C-alpha cells in the first residue's frame, strides 16, 4: 500500500493512459446475440492500479480481451472506443497491434501452463518479445532473459533458463509468464486471474511480485479477479462487474468502507473470513447468475437482490455518482475485516477524502433508509428470508 492516497481515477488535469468508453462486445451465438460486455466506461491514470471483480461470466475477461483486441474476428463484434495513450485500439490493424502487444500492453493469463509453449525452453520464450520488438541478438536476448528471471524471483536462473515449462512448479510458471509480459517493459499490464490456479502462499508471492514490478517500472496494472480479498490491499480503484455491466466503481478504500451496490455487499459477505468464528453461517447470494442470452429487463441483479422492488424489475438503474458527503471513508474507525450496517451511519470524515468518484447502479443503495425499508418490505412479503436470501425471484 505504497500510494493509497492516489487513485486510479484519472483527474481532469491528467491524460489517462487508457480510456475505455462505451465498450460493448457482442458474441453472435446460435441462440441470438450475447452481449458479454455492455457499455463499459473507465479510464486509468499512468502508474495506477485497477481491480476488476466479478463472478465467472460477468464479462471481466471478455472486457480485457476486447481492450487488448485478442478476441477472434468471426462472430464477435466490439464497439465503443478504447484509447491507449491517445491511440485508438479499435482502429488498429494486425501489424500495428503486434507493435502494441509487448512494449505497450501486456497480459498475464490465469493458467500458466496453458499460456507457455511446452516445447520451447524458458529462456527463449522470455527473450522472444525482446528479439522481435527490440531487435536484440540471440545472445543479448538471453542475457536480458536471465536478468528478467532474476527479477521475477526464479531461483538459479542460470539453470532454469534452459528448462521447459513442465519442469517448473505452478508458481514458478506464473513467474515465467510474468517475466514474458514484463520483458518489453509494457506501460500497462493486464493480469487476468493471475493467481486463481495457485495456492494461497504462492498467490501472495505472485501478487507481491506484481506489485513490486509495477512500482519499479511505473507501470499501470489491471488486476482481474473474482476474489475481493485479492484487490483489497493491492489496487487504487475497483470496478465490480455483473452481467457485462459495471455495477459499482470506486476508489478501493471507499468501496470497502462504503459499499452502495447490493451485489458488491452480497459478494463481500459471502467470503469466509479467518476472523469469523468457525462454523459461522456464510451469507449467500441466492439464485444463479442470469443467462446472458436472456437477461432480465430491469436491474440485472434484481432477481437475486434482497432489496429489489418493483421499480428494479421494471427499469434498469443508471450508473450514478454517490453524493460526496455520504461517501466517507471511515475505514480507520471500523474493525478490520468486518463490515456492519451501522458503520454507514457515523459520518466521520476523518479518513482522508478520496479523489475519484464513487459510481453505482442501484435505486436502493446499501446503507440508505430506502434500502432498509425495501428490505423490510421484502421480508414482510416473504420474497426474502430474514437472513437476506432471496426465496423466490420477483
Amino acid at each position: 500500500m505504497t500510494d493509497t492516497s492516489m487513485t486510479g481515477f484519472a483527474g481532469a488535469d491528467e491524460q489517462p493512459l487508457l480510456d475505455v468508453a462505451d465498450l460493448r462486445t457482442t458474441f453472435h451465438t446460435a441462440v441470438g446475440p450475447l452481449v458479454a460486455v455492455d457499455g463499459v466506461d473507465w479510464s486509468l491514470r499512468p502508474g495506477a492500479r485497477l481491480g476488476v471483480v466479478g463472478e465467472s461470466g460477468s464479462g471481466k475477461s471478455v472486457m480485457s480481451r476486447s481492450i487488448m483486441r485478442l478476441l477472434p474476428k468471426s462472430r464477435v463484434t466490439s464497439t465503443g472506443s478504447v484509447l491507449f495513450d491517445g491511440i485508438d485500439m479499435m482502429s488498429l490493424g494486425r501489424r500495428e497491434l503486434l507493435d502494441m502487444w509487448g512494449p505497450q500492453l501486456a497480459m498475464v493469463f490465469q493458467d500458466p501452463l496453458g499460456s507457455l509453449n511446452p516445447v520451447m525452453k524458458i529462456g527463449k520464450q522470455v527473450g522472444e518479445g525482446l528479439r522481435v520488438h527490440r531487435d536484440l541478438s540471440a545472445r543479448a536476448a538471453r542475457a536480458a532473459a536471465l536478468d528478467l528471471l532474476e527479477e521475477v524471483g526464479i531461483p538459479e536462473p542460470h539453470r532454469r533458463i534452459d528448462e521447459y515449462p513442465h519442469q517448473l512448479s505452478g508458481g514458478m510458471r506464473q513467474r515465467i509468464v510474468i517475466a514474458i509480459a514484463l520483458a518489453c517493459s509494457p506501460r500497462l499490464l493486464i493480469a487476468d486471474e493471475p493467481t486463481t490456479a495457485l495456492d494461497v502462499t504462492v498467490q501472495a508471492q505472485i501478487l507481491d511480485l506484481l506489485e513490486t514490478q509495477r512500482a519499479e517500472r511505473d507501470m499501470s496494472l489491471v488486476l482481474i479477479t473474482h476474489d475481493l480479498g485479492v484487490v483489497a490491499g493491492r489496487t487504487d480503484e475497483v470496478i465490480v462487474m455483473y452481467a457485462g455491466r459495471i455495477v459499482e466503481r470506486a476508489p478501493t478504500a471507499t468501496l470497502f468502507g462504503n459499499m452502495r451496490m447490493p451485489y458488491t455487499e452480497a459478494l463481500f459477505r459471502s467470503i469466509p473470513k479467518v476472523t469469523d468464528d468457525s462454523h459461522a453461517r456464510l451469507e449467500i447470494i441466492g439464485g444463479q447468475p442470469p443467462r446472458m442470452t436472456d437477461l432480465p429487463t430491469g436491474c440485472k441483479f434484481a432477481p437475486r437482490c434482497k432489496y429489489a422492488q418493483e421499480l428494479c424489475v421494471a427499469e434498469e438503474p443508471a450508473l450514478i455518482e454517490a453524493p460526496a458527503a455520504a461517501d466517507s471513508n471511515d475505514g480507520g474507525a471500523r474493525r478490520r475485516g468486518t463490515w456492519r450496517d451501522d458503520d454507514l451511519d457515523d459520518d466521520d470524515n476523518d479518513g482522508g477524502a478520496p479523489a475519484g468518484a464513487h459510481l453505482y447502479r442501484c435505486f436502493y443503495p446499501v446503507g440508505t433508509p430506502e434500502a432498509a425499508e425495501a428490505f423490510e418490505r421484502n421480508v414482510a412479503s416473504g420474497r426474502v428470508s430474514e437472513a437476506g436470501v432471496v426465496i423466490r425471484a420477483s
Partner: protein
Amino acid sequence: MAGSGNAHLRSDALLRAQDLVVEFPAAGGRKVYAVSGVSLDLMEGETLGLVGESGCGKSTTGRAILQLPSPTSGSVQVAGQELTELDPDAMREVRPRLQMIYQDPISSLNPRRRVRDIIAEPLFIALENVTRRTAMATWQERIGGLLQTLLERLAIPMRIVGLAASVAFALWILSEAVEERAAEPWLGWTEVPAAIIGFPALAIALAVAAVGLVLGLTWVLLALMLPFSLMSRQFGEVSAPVGIAGVVVTTGASGFMLWRTWSSFGGWAKWVNSGGLGLLTAVLVVWLAASIANPERAGASGVATTLSAMVVLQVFYVAGLDAGVKLIVLVVSIVVDTLLLRWVLRRYRANRNAARERAEPRVREVLEYVGINPDDAMDRRPWEFSGGQAQRLSIARALVSVPQVIICDEPVSSLDVSVQAQILNLLEDLKNLMGLTLVFIAHDLAVVKNVSDRVAVMYLGKLCEVSEPDAMFDEPAHPYTEMLLAAIPQPDPEAELGSGRIDGELPSPMDPPSGCRFRTRCPHAAQRCADEEPEMREIAPGRFVACHTPLIGETAPERVEIASAGRGAS
C-alpha cells in the same frame, strides 16, 4: 514442525489412520515421499480440516484413507475395521460407507451419463454386493454365485482375447484357411446346425479340440501372459537394464513357444481347421454367456461386439459348403443373430429400467437434500449444469449410499466465491441433518476454519499442527500455520499485507530435508531442527504441535519475523 508422533490421537474414534506412509516410485530408482507417517483420527459427526500447500500430500492422505491406492504402510481403521488388510471384494463392500467429493465437479461426473444414473451408481454397486451376500444361502446358490463371479471375472480378459483373436485371425489367416478348406471340405452334416445358430455348443467345441490342441493353447496363453505379467508387476521398482533384459528374455521365450506351437500343427491354417476354430468359438460362447448373465456389467456394446465376432467366425464354417447352402446358412444365421441380439438388449434394458425405478425415490431424495430440483435435473447430463450445481451433484452422489465418512478433496477450490459460500453452507446443513463425518481437504484456511471442528496442518508429507480451529487461528502454534495465515488475502484494504514474509517453495518430496521438514523455510530454524525430527506433542489443552520451538508457551520465540498479517482480530 512437520514431524511424526501420535500424541494427538483419541480413543473411540470413528476413523483412525495411523502412521500412514505413501511412497511412489520415480525415475532413476528414486522415491517420492508423498506422505511420511501421518496419523489422523475423526470422531463421529466431526469435520476434520486438512490444510497445506499443493504437493504437501493432503490429497494423497485422503486417498490413502480410501485405499486409492492403499498406503505403503500404516493402518486405517473405520469403526474398528482395518481397511489395509481387506481383500478387494471385502473392500468393495466397505466402499459405500466411504465416499469422496472431488475438486473439479465437471470432470468427476461422466459427461455421457444422465444425472439419475450417475447418482444411482453407488446404489447399484452397493445393492449388487448385498444381493450377492444373501444369495449365498444354499449350496446350489453358492455354486451359482461362484459361477457368476467367475464369469464376471472372465468378462474383461475374454473380451480382450476375443477381440484380439478375431481381428488377428480374420486378417492374417482368413484367406489361407478358407482356401485350404474349400479344396478339402470336411464339414459334416452334424456341424451344419451349429453353423446356422452362429455358435456351436460348448460340447461340440470340446469334442473337436484334441488333447494336443489344449496343450498347444496352453503354450500360446503362457507365451502371451509371461511378458505381460512381468511388465505389469512392479516394473517401476526394477532398474531399467534388468527390466529391459527381462522383457527381451520373455519375449524371446514366448516367440520360441509360438513357433513350436505353429510347427507342431504344420501351420496356423491347419490349427484353425483342426479344432482351433472350435476352441475360439467356445471362448466366445463363454464370454457371451457371461455378458448375458450380467448385462449391466458387460454393457450392450460388449454383447454386440461378441455377436459380430461370431459372424466373422461363421465365414470359416460356411467356407466349404455349396453356394446355395452357403447362402441359406448365412441368411438364416444373420436372422438368428439379430433376434438373439435383440433379446439380449431387451433383457439388458429391462434390467436397467427396473434398477432405475428401484433407485428413483432415493435419487430424488438426495437431489432434494442438495438443493436441486429432481424433475428438472434427473434426465440432464452433467455438462448442462454450472460448476456449483455440478458440485451439488457430486455431493448427492457421495450421499446416496449413506456413507459414514466423506472425504472432500478441495471441493470448493474451483468455484466462485458466491458459489463457494453456497456449497459450504450446504455441507454444514447436511452435516447437521445427517450427522456426516467429513475430512475436508483445502488450501484456503478461511474455508477450512469455516467448516472444521478440528484442523490438521500438513507440510511435505508430515503433520505440523492439530488443533481446534478457533484457537489455532487466533494464535497459531506452528511457524508454518502462521505463514499460511499471513498469505490469506483479506477483503479489507487496511489489513496489513503479508508481503515479503512468505518465502520459498515447497522442497522436493523426493529429497525432503532432514529433521523438521519445514526448517528450510522456517524463520526460527536452529541446528536442532536439522538434526532431530520434532514429535507431535500437546503444548496446551487440545493443541498438538510438532515443533521444537512452538510459537505459544514459555519457550515461544518472538513473533516478529512473520508478522500476524491478516489475522485482524488477534
